[in-house]
């Protein structure tokens, strides 16, 4: 597995929800790329479009949602041109996804084992017995004690952490190239979150699986990611490697987010908060989407929307402050 080989390239993605009452641009021009073996985090708050971005990649946007523009390239395939049948073959096999609430993503009427081996049988064309063996191996692999027992249990008897492990086992059962994890630890307790993050980190290292991590928690980002995409109101506002982002965040929104996250080991701190509220689809501001909450807003920000530009090598920002290389 060579480094720097591009696995996924998203170009100018626009996903809109077209309803009777109007069009909602949930994702409005998102571009990024991720290499093989890399972990990329998308950070954002509710309504930022981070989940819709991941669902667009999975091809799981349902009506009234629609990818209206843009390209998603995965390995050598253009995903948004695939037929549903080809997509289905890809999903679970080459791209897998885990969700925030593992209980709702597991079918309560089937045993855990049933659901894992179903995925394996579906994509690998092997018999049930081998699938069972492989599933149990996978369950053991994600750190489930007595996997044979869990294999025959129903989802509701498992704890939240166990369920998320099962989901990860299921997602990884076909050794996908890309794992999309949408808030995988948000519903879990702190010590269990640490277990799951550890597990994901180790599995990714071992198998070279790339992870696209969707989260709102900057702590999780700092622990896991190689590159970070900060999204606000359907757009990428900052995109760089994790160290640069935390060392010298440039976009006022990123700065605000970092300042409003408690630092934990500093004793006397005063949290700065971003004033105002996250804009909603019905009151999307003109110009820069962040300007009503931005402490540095200029006249230009109110009228004209900045484009995302590479202001520094490997560091893209959507902000007028850094126009012409200023800082």
């Amino acid at each position, binding site marked *: 597995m060579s480094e720097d080989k591009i696995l996924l390239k998203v170009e100018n993605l626009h996903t809109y*929800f077209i309803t009777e009452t109007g069009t*909602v641009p*949930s994702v409005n021009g998102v571009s990024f790329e991720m290499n093989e073996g890399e972990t990329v985090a998308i950070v954002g708050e*509710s*309504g930022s479009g981070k*989940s*819709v971005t991941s*669902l667009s990649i999975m091809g*799981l*946007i*349902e009506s009234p*949602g629609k990818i209206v523009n843009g390209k998603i390239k995965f390995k050598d395939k253009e995903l948004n041109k695939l037929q549903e049948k080809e997509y289905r073959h890809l999903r679970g096999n080459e791209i897998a996804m885990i969700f925030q609430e593992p209980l709702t993503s597991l079918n309560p009427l089937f045993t855990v084992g049933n659901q894992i081996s179903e995925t394996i049988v579906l994509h690998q064309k092997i018999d049930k017995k081998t699938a069972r063996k492989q599933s149990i191996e996978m369950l053991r692999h994600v750190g489930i004690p007595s996997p044979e027992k869990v294999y025959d249990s129903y989802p509701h008897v498992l704890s939240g952490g166990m369920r998320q492990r099962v989901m990860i086992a299921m997602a990884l059962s076909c050794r996908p190239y890309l794992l999309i994890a949408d808030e995988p630890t948000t519903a879990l307790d702190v010590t269990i979150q640490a277990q799951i993050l550890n597990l994901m980190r180790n599995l990714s290292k071992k198998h070279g699986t790339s992870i696209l991590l969707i989260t709102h928690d900057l702590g999780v980002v700092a622990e896991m990611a190689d590159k970070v995409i900060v999204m606000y109101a359907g757009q990428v506002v900052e995109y760089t490697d994790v160290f640069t982002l935390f060392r010298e965040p440039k976009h006022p929104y990123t700065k605000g987010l970092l300042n409003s996250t408690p630092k934990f080991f500093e004793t006397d701190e005063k949290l700065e908060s971003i004033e105002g509220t*996250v804009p*909603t*689809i*019905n*009151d999307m501001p003109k110009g820069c989407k962040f300007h009503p909450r931005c402490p540095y807003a200029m006249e230009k920000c109110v009228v004209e929307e900045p484009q995302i530009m590479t202001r520094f090598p490997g560091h893209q920002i959507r902000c007028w402050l850094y126009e012409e290389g200023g800082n």
Partner: protein
Amino acid sequence: MVVEHKNSDQHLIDSKTNGSSWKIWLKRLWKSKTGTVGLLVIFIVILTAILAPVLAPFNPNEIDPEKMLVPPFWSEGGSIEHLLGTDNLGRDILSRILYGSRVSLLVGISSVVLAGILGVFIGLISGYYGGFLDTILMRIVDAFLAIPNILFALVFLAVFGPSVVTLIFVLGITNWVSYARIVRGETLSVKEREFVKAARAIGVKNMMIIMRHILPNVISSFIVISTLSVATTIIMEASLSFLGLGIQPPTVSWGGILSDGRDYLATSWWLATFPGLAITITVLAIIFLGDWLRDILDPRTKG
């Protein structure tokens, strides 16, 4: 699953909508076409019920042996005098339908109000307090549900004698259980919401919590069912009258007219068709109105 729902209802509406609340209601009524139609039809039905003596061309019980089974005016042999024809005794069908609407609406609405008050009250108490009281009340409800409605009504009417009052009573009694069950179920779920917890934490008295926090949040499902139920009650009254245990002559009801017409279905279709049509139109209008009411009672759908 795709749209982040929590956001979609966050839109901050302008505080422009400060006109009189009447105007807002009318505006919102106009927006819902079915609601407008429903309200309009019901308004007309109620008006004709009230104005029946003025509007009806004949006394509904006036027998005219010379004009038996006259067809409606557009059919061969019909006359302008009897727009919708006459029945086997020569009574004017239009007049009978106009007068019949009085009893049918009265029975339909009052029995639902009776059932509603009883059912909502018991449902709220049972769901909110739970425990032993709940068990007892729900067993009573189960017992009621186990008796076939029509059988219970027949026995009751046979014992107490058919009249408008007993009919309202019996229809009310057979219907309250469904309200009680639905309201209890809703109460159980609303009770667990945090705002009820918040009210209890403040120290609000139980009765206040029920009236202010629970009732308004269960009322919309009640309204939907009760409008449907006015409809089924009108039909039930018709069935009972059809079986001869409903409204007794000389009082006219839609069910009664329908039942009188059953022997002539093959030869004189208009006897049963017009009262049937009246029932259908009224019931549909009530259902439309119910849907609309449910929508406007929810503050979330405003604007």
